[in-house]
């Protein structure tokens, strides 16, 4: 279970404080799949980062009684000057996973070939997504946080994500940010819309989309 209570996040900008999240509460039960909708800059990624613990809220509390992944997003989580393989090594060390047995799996899943031994900063965004996804499958989490990353990539990558994440790990919880409606419709049981710092929960995804589009 993950419980967010009354989370507020404020950033100090040059024009003064800007409140991105204002009193957000949310519960994520084991196995639950929640989609997050919102306009650009509405605070979706901030919310994901606060759930992951990468960022701390300005006020409010988070309780995590299940393991939560890092945000699987375009940027972040990897050191650009390190190779894919060295990044894998780093993450294995941080999460206490044996490195050697993972290498084959990640190489095969990411299909990066010799690029596994090149710095990540030379990768395209599709390659980064493949690496991020493959590495995150090496560490087992109860809850995966997915920030847009499955929207890139070709049909084959989608098919693999489908199998590894949504079939093999369908018992896990998932919080997903995506601008592509079909991702959320396909995989989530309900959805939340962030607007003006507030989180509105909808048990019906169509209702969530209606609200999202009318705002």
């Amino acid at each position, binding site marked *: 279970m993950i419980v967010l209570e009354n989370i507020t996040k404020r*950033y100090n900008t040059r024009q003064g404080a800007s409140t991105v999240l204002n009193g957000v509460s949310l519960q994520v039960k084991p196995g639950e799949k929640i989609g997050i909708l919102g306009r650009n800059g509405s605070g979706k990624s901030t919310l994901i*980062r606060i759930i*992951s*613990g*990468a*960022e*701390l*809220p*300005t*006020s*409010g*509390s*988070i*309780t*995590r*009684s299940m393991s*939560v992944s*890092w*945000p699987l*997003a375009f*940027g*972040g*989580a*990897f*050191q*650009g*000057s*390190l190779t894919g393989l*060295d990044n894998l*090594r*780093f*993450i294995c*060390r*941080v*999460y*206490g996973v044996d490195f050697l047995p993972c290498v084959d799996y990640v190489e095969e899943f990411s299909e990066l070939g010799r690029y596994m031994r090149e710095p990540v900063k030379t990768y395209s965004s599709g390659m980064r997504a493949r690496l991020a996804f493959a590495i995150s499958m090496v560490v087992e989490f109860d809850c995966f946080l997915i920030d847009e990353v499955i929207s890139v990539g070709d049909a084959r990558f989608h098919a693999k994500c489908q199998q590894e994440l949504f079939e093999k790990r369908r018992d896990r919880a998932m919080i997903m940010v995506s601008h592509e409606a079909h991702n959320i419709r396909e995989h989530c049981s309900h959805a939340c819309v962030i607007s003006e710092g507030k989180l509105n929960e909808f048990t019906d995804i169509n209702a969530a989309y209606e609200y999202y589009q009318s705002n």
Partner: protein
Amino acid sequence: MGITSEVSLRRSGRIQARVIWALLMREIITRYGRHNIGFMWMFVEPMMFTLGVAALWSFAGLSHGSSLPIVAFAITGYSAVLLWRNMPGRCVGAIEPNLALMYHRNVKVMDIYASRILLEVAGATISFTILSLLFIAIGWMPYPEDIMKVLVGWFMLAWFGGALAFTVGGLSAMSEAVEKVWHPITYLMFPLSGAMFMVEWLPDVAKNIILYLPMVHGVEILREGYFGSAVRAHYDILYMGVICLCLTLLGLSLTREVGRRVTPE
């Protein structure tokens, strides 16, 4: 603000050790690479500095007519400078290149500083040990008279450098001006740090002033350990300890505050 998760202190310790180790290994790869001598640059680089300085001081006859062997004088002095000065230098602006890694919840600002500090301590210590053994073996340097005292002096300097590193690192994350100011400060501190002189050689007025600087005490302890009765050392280990303790507290609280504000890339 409460972040609750049921993790025991022992388990937290294990996670932190794991994270610091991961960061340390990562740092070794990004800094030294796998080409030519790889991670050995960690101590070869400070060794080159120290050897160069030892050679220069030998030519310049910097031992002020005292009976101290100049090579030993230079190696104890310059190694001490490398030890306390490089740690803060490595922690200034250390967060920025690591922002992406802070996507991982357990990677904290504290761990980034700690891994860099450990790497500097290791490099300076290995360099100092190898050079000492080398010059003792060829007879240019005497055996240390009191090895325990050498270790105490070295430990105090490492503690001072580490505490200073947390403080300066934390401040540099709060204001960019710190990075600019830090370089001239270290540069000007070098001749005052006790590396190039013994306090005994100074006039009485200067003695009292110079002993306000904590690292001077550390160098004096180190040299007393090395040269024993050949020198008259001036130090107050309690004074240095209190300063180090205060700096540690200040440094850790600054680091915590910075960690609270940090926004991963």
